[in-house]
């Protein structure tokens, strides 16, 4: 018998102000003792809702509207809160999506452990047991006496993990436990988790949209789409022999940057609106291989391969993979990057020995942070230079200095013969005609109260002096350029009426509006779903090549750097530790820090069949 058994579970949000949303729809799955199950899916597909339902933590307006949840043979679908209490944490524990907020800010870590023990009548010595747990996640015992705000994000995350394991639960739900953390830290925590899981033998349901990680860690992977599970396969199987077109799309957007040739593909379109009912397959509108029948018949989750799949094509083809073979014919939605040569062009923007020192005063103490330390480089037309580094390494600071938001403490920046570091007001405004910024977060980069046309017309009117009507026409053209067509359909929309990918396109269009020579893109895709990332990268690449723009591409994601950049610079604590042609840096990293970054890249199926990861063995040894 399975430890956790979910049958036909449905969860509906019925808010007062809007239509009901079926966030989880007829989901069934099992988790066995000691099993590590991954749950993948685009943002908003219902992963967290499903997790909360399993934990019976749904709050109004969400409610379980059908199905059963059985834990260790006991039906907990509608057990009362009071009866459930004894099971909580002893049987079912969890680490939430946002590690930052899941600890009570006003009591010490010790008390958060203590009340867990108290609640379950566990007469253990709190200090001893909690200390032990903290050590298990490589934290010092002294952390016990601290308050959450005195810990870094990674530390909080580890505390949350230790807390989740405090009562040696049989099942742990991890809901994107490492989002918002630095790649290296993230890696560290996940490695530790896997080790602990192997040692303590609890079962895990691991929710994430980070494909690589899930594939690498999990024994079995479930893929969710629009509230339904569309595929459920052992991890190794999923990597090499996934069956559902959506899984293929998801996996296609992932590749190993160390490969000679890196290809990513993307699924255009957005998930369906779950507040409406749809006939047929929910994925059909985005499915490249859909047939007529997909439009009318809703497929069931049926055994296929070594697991289950929800797809008519798979159902109908005997071997199961027939449908996917058709995909090969549709290669136009793929972005590929091979080895590239650095062309020798004069740089338009030259950074010469730039440093930035921040002084922060707290009370009488002054802390000096050297955010950027003697960095030099140049940006060349038609080329992308990637700036890679972990969080806090000074990437944004460099971007701010390049755009004149901040002045360097030392060194100089030249745009042609304009000294950027000395520009003020009017001159600065003029300079920004030539140097534009693409923002990281498309959700905050657009004013929620202003239309797309307004956002695009401002730079046109200010920098190019166009009239209102001209600007509107030009704005339309820009939208077409970034692939939003027909433009008329988007011009008068407000940001909240656009998807993330569409918003990011608007942001890019706005940066292009004044026809800049230099574009700085500060982590432009980190807030987007995996499936959209490739699409945006393709767009950026095309723009750079077509328009001869010099681009600084800031990221901590080596894969996108590999895809887009001609040249890569690695920044560590403000110092540039490595610089060179992309493939060279990634393939033959010399600096230990660069190697650490590379090691943090998950390698799905590393122990099994190397389907995606085909990096050199040396690297793999490093991470072990």
């Amino acid at each position, binding site marked *: 018998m399975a430890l956790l058994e979910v049958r036909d579970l449905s969860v509906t949000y019925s808010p007062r102000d809007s239509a009901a949303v079926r966030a989880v729809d007829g989901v069934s799955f099992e988790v066995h003792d000691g099993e590590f199950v991954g749950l993948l899916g685009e943002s908003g597909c219902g992963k967290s809702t499903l997790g909360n339902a399993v934990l019976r933590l749904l709050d109004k307006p969400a409610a379980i509207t059908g199905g059963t949840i059985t834990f260790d043979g006991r039906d907990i679908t509608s057990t009362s809160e009071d009866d459930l209490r004894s099971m909580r944490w002893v049987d079912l524990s969890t680490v939430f999506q946002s590690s930052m907020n899941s600890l*009570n*800010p006003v009591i010490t870590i010790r008390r958060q452990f203590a*009340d867990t023990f108290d609640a379950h009548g566990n007469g253990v010595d709190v200090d001893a047991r909690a200390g032990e747990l903290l050590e298990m996640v490589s934290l010092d015992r002294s952390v016990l006496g601290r308050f959450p705000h005195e810990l870094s994000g990674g530390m909080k995350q580890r505390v949350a993990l230790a807390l989740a394991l405090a009562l040696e639960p049989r099942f742990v739900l991890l809901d994107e436990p490492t989002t918002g953390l630095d790649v290296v830290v993230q890696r560290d925590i996940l490695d530790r988790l896997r080790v602990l899981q192997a040692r303590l033998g609890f079962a895990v349901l691991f929710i994430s949209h980070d494909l690589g990680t899930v594939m690498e860690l999990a024994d079995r992977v479930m893929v969710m789409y629009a509230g339904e599970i569309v595929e459920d396969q052992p991890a190794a199987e999923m990597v090499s022999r996934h069956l559902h077109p959506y899984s293929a799309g998801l996996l296609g957007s992932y590749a190993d940057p160390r490969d000679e040739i890196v290809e990513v593909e993307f699924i255009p379109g957005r998930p369906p609106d779950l507040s409406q009912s749809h006939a047929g397959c929910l994925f059909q509108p985005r499915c490249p291989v859909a047939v007529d029948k997909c439009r009318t018949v809703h497929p069931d989750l049926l055994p296929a391969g070594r697991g289950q799949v929800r797809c008519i094509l798979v159902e109908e083809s005997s071997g199961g993979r027939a449908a996917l073979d058709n995909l090969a014919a549709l290669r136009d939605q793929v972005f590929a990057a091979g080895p590239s040569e650095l062309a020798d062009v004069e740089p338009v923007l030259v950074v010469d020995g730039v440093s930035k020192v921040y002084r922060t005063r707290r009370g009488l103490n002054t802390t000096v942070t050297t955010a950027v330390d003697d960095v030099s480089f140049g940006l060349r037309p038609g080329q992308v230079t990637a700036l890679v580094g972990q969080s806090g390494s000074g990437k944004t600071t460099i971007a701010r200095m390049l755009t004149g938001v901040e002045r360097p403490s030392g060194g100089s920046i030249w745009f042609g013969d304009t000294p950027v570091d000395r520009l003020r007001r009017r001159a600065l405004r003029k300079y920004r005609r030539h140097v534009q910024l693409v923002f990281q977060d498309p959700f905050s980069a657009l004013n929620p109260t202003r239309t797309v046309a307004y956002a695009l017309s401002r730079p046109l009117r200010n920098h190019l002096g166009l009239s209102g009507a001209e600007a509107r026409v030009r704005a339309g053209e820009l939208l077409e350029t970034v692939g939003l067509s027909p433009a008329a359909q988007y011009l008068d929309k407000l940001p909240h009426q656009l998807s993330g990918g569409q918003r990011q396109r608007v942001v890019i269009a706005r940066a292009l509006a004044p026809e800049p020579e230099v574009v700085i893109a500060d982590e432009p895709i980190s807030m987007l779903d995996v499936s959209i990332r490739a699409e945006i990268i393709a767009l950026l690449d095309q723009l750079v090549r077509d328009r001869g723009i010099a681009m600084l591409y800031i990221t901590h994601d080596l894969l996108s750097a590999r895809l887009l950049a001609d040249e890569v610079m690695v920044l560590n604590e403000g110092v540039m530790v490595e610089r060179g042609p992309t493939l060279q840096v990634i393939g033959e990293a010399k600096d230990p820090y660069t190697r650490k970054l590379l090691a943090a890249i998950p390698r799905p199926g590393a122990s099994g069949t190397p389907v995606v990861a085909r990096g050199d063995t040396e690297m793999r040894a490093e991470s072990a």
Partner: protein
Amino acid sequence: MLYFLRRTGFFVATLWAAVTLNFLIPRLQPGDPAQALLSRLQGNTQAVNPVQLAAIRKMLGTQDGNLLSQYWDYLGAVVHGQFGVSYSYYPYSVTAMIATALPWTLILVGVTQIASFAIGTLLGAWAAYRRNSRVDSVITLGSTFVGTLPFFWIALVLIFVFAITLNWFPDGGGYGGGSSPSWTWLFFSDAFQHSVLPALALLITGPVGWIIGMRNNMVQTLGEDYARLARAKGLPRRRIALTYGARIAILPNVTGFAIALGGLLGGTVLVETIFNYPGLGRLLLEAVSNKDYPLMQALFLFTTIGVLIANFLADVTYGFLDPRVRRAEAP
């Protein structure tokens, strides 16, 4: 340390501004304390006797000299805590008048403020804990309605019903004509009788703000991840409500409460006027209507200092209660 200096600087600057405001406002306006005193005496139905007026004016020693030197003298007097002689209570000093009135205000309003806060916080927490239940609606809607009734009107109605119609409680004053302030049981029970209605009026309208504030804060904290995690951990409901809801939700209210306590005098004007309660608020209103500049200035200054100190304490308390602030504000 620097933080402390900054606070002190702000404290002093605000005080100075208040003191100056205090000095200027009365002097910029027409009016004559002596005339005000005289008309308090005889109303507007008798002719003013110019000789008498001049004598009173002379007695009060209304200041002469240019504004600047007056200001300088005034600052000096304030620094030395000399507020002079009250005009309307000549020859009693301003300090004596404040000393007489202060205990009454402190006791009546202080106690009811604390009680309002306690009641409001408890009801608010209860409403949040039983969110969307009938208890919640009764508390929220009830307090909203009560909160909108004008305070002075409630007070009038209370007097009408309980003092005049039912004659259960005296209709005003701090104590009866038959007793006089002393440390006797009789006096205390008398004073208590007299404080019931004003206290009731304050208690009806007082908790409303705290109820709504507490409820909203707590609904929010109970929706936070840490509260959800507490539930997931299987903590008892009460414990979640207290440690994960109320404990955090109360923080903003505590600051508000300290500031409200500091603003105590302001809130007493109405209640003390209606109930003729011998406290600071009524003294202030009287000082204003009699143009008793010295008394008014002192009272105003007194309140400002009260509010400033309360603000200061609120900051400190907040730092003490909220560990997140504690570190940031440590020198």
